[in-house]
């Protein structure tokens, strides 16, 4: 097991190197000039050229890449071209809101989705099943930002139940923290609910059809108990796989949701940085997101052994 983890961690290396190379080239070959943005609209062309030089942007690309990679190896993501702060500090400042949003969204989505999925599977073929699955398809089909604005209008502006926007740090209390996360988590979690509910239903149906379930039924084990204990346990593997895939989905959704609800997270940090061409931030955040994605998938693979004793590495 340890050897397997070590091997997997090692295999992350070439992946991350590829990501680094790809991201760097993407940014530096494309047009857009951070120097012109820094200088502001009233600046003369000469001023802009001087700033470009001061930022080292007139150096050859391969040289800029080497400088970046060599500090990357030391765990240094560089400094923002606009503020003086190191990129690692900026990401750390924004990490709490993004992690909070991801966490509440995941919990919301998994709880709702598994409930829906199990219900649909238990009542397979009935109207309830069809309604749940119909909802799942609709959940896939409505954009996050449309749901977001709808929720804001209904729950924040008309009913005034919840705040419109923003984020309250966990240190100021769990309740204020949660109040700000309810609407974004629902908006972002909807797609996730749809996805997981479908998988749950499908795997549950599969498992229910297996011989041992039939045996269990024949032995007269109570239906609800049977569903929850046997079926759900066996359905865990594919569900966890989807959660692994869903991390990519979540990262994408976070970017949009943070914009709609003005949550000062990592997603907004990078969207703003792209608009301004703050290269070190864009590169740093993409590296971090990619690293998280690879790691989460590693953890998902690990969790198979816990969920299903038959799988061994």
């Amino acid at each position, binding site marked *: 097991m340890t050897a397997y983890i070590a091997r997997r961690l090692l295999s992350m290396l070439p992946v991350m190197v590829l990501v680094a190379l790809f991201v760097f080239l993407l940014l530096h070959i494309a047009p857009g000039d951070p120097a012109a943005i820094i200088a*502001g609209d009233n600046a*003369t062309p000469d001023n802009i050229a001087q700033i470009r030089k001061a930022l080292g942007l007139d150096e050859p690309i391969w040289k800029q890449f080497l400088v970046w990679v060599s500090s990357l190896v030391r765990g240094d993501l560089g400094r923002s071209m606009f503020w003086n702060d190191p990129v690692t500090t900026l990401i750390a400042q924004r990490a709490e809101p993004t992690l909070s949003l991801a966490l509440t969204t995941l919990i919301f989505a998994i709880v709702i989705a598994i409930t829906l999925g199990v219900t649909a599977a238990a009542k397979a073929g009935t109207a309830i099943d069809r309604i749940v699955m119909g909802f799942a398809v609709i959940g896939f089909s409505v954009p996050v930002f449309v749901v977001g604005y709808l929720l804001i209008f209904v729950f924040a502006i008309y009913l005034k139940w919840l705040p419109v926007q923003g984020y309250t740090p966990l240190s100021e209390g769990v309740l204020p923290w949660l109040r700000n996360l309810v609407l974004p988590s629902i908006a972002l979690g909807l797609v996730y609910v749809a996805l997981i509910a479908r998988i749950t239903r499908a795997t549950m149906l599969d498992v229910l059809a297996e011989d041992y379930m039939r045996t269990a039924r024949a032995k007269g084990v109570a239906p609800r108990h049977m569903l929850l204990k046997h079926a759900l346990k066996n359905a865990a593997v594919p569900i966890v796989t989807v959660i692994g895939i869903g991390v990519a989905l979540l990262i994408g959704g976070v970017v949009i949701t943070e914009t709609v609800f003005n949550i000062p997270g990592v997603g907004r940090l990078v969207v703003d940085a792209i608009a301004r061409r703050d290269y070190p931030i864009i590169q740093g955040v993409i590296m971090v997101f990619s690293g998280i994605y690879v790691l989460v998938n590693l953890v998902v693979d690990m969790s198979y052994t816990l969920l299903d004793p038959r799988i061994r590495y």
Partner: protein
Amino acid sequence: MKITRRTALQGGIATAAVIAAPSIVRAQAKPSAARTVRAVFHGDIPTYDPIWTTANMTAYHGGMVYDTLFGIDGKQQPQPQMVGKWGVSDDKLTYTFELRDGLKWTDGTPVTSADVVPSLKRWAARDGGGQHMMLRVKDIAAKDAKTFTIELKERYGLVLEVLAKTSTPVCFMMRKKEAETDPMQKIDQVVGSGPFKLNLDETKPGTQYVYDRNPDYVPRADAPSGIAGGKKVNLERVIFVNMPDAQTAVAALQAGEIDFYEVPPTDLLPQLEGDKNIKIEVLNSLGNVGQIRPNFLHPPFNNEKARQALLYLVKQSDYMKASFGDSKYARTCPSFFGMGTPMENDANTDWFKGGQNLEKAKALFKEAGYDGKPIVLMQATNIAIMSNTAQILAQELRQVGLNVQVEAMDWSNVVQRRSNKSPPDQGGWNLFITWSGGSAIGNPILLAAHAATGDKAWFGWPSDSLHEELRTKWALAGTPEERKQIAQQIQANAWKFVPQLYYGQWMQPAAMRTNINNLLPVAEIIPWWNVTKG
């Protein structure tokens, strides 16, 4: 050391105490909500150095933490601010200034001439107005700790105006240490002598910038006006919140989560006007003037006739309607110096008085020898007004039979591509769209875009020797009347060679909670001194 259960426990407690300590300190230091203002502006602070950049958000930041030698008052007149006594020699060539008492940096050291002189030099290296002045300056020198002089080679009427102006870069004073930074590098510490100080512990770049009242700041005794007079601070804390989405910001203002929103879109004003907790005020009555810049280097706009054709083609009222609806805050702008500015006049504005004239435009394009080549128009898609304007301009150009190629890109791409002097089909361009503050448009020297010095000029590279001659004459003019007269000549000539044209002028009303009072109306800076809450 062996870790026993007991040492581990102690360590744990110590760590907990360390982690808890800063939050306790913070909790004590946090000012009451009644004296805290949360404000949302048009953008994010791109960098802390207001000399390095011309971005307005950085000037807002500068206005909080730094102070100026002079300040423009409500009547657009320069008044002493950090300067106490001052005088000018009889030959008008030597200005002597003495700093007033009680000026202190936030690190506790006093402000001296040794700080002021390098601050002036660094600013003058970056500012268009400063550069213009420096051409005539023989020396800037410290006489003693509180006195310094500016010696001129020739008479120059604008010394106090450029020191006092609010158009960017504003002439903010910094410590010697920062002021001696290479003007092309950014400063790395924020230490000012202004009415507020930046609270770095609570500030999160890109999210919120926290400014606390500077308890050591000694305001002048005179009444505040513009950025002149006593900067008395009634608030404990002002938080600049970055909120890029307008809908979110308006909703947050209505919900009382923020106190002030600088740029509510005109279309959302009805929603705010109906709210009894919200009021709407115009802080910058000169507003903004929208500019269309033709490229002088390439056909068809290397030809005067083609540029004149644009004047007849552009129907400003349509542009204003598209972006602002039937708003009382938007208007047309026939004057080269903007409407409502001291230099506004109506010389050579027949093209405007006659209204849109498609036939005339068509004829002028023909005279210019337009050959059907695609006209490259850059559209900044992430800024609504610019995006709308480009689409309407494209429609108008097509109406007179021009072949228009709209290049959609974000603003970052526009600012890069506009510096490209190549032909439009090789990475260059023909037209781009931007806007400038009305107070800057109203001054032929301060706005970089007003220069017509060809290769050295602002993007579009207009070239006209008469224009340059008149600008210098204006700068050296002795009386306001003389300036107004020269301004008329400049405009008459400008609407002939057309270095740029306008698509309208609009004021941006700010929206705030009704308990926010006494905001001073200033162009291009939002002063948070004098403001009261409750």
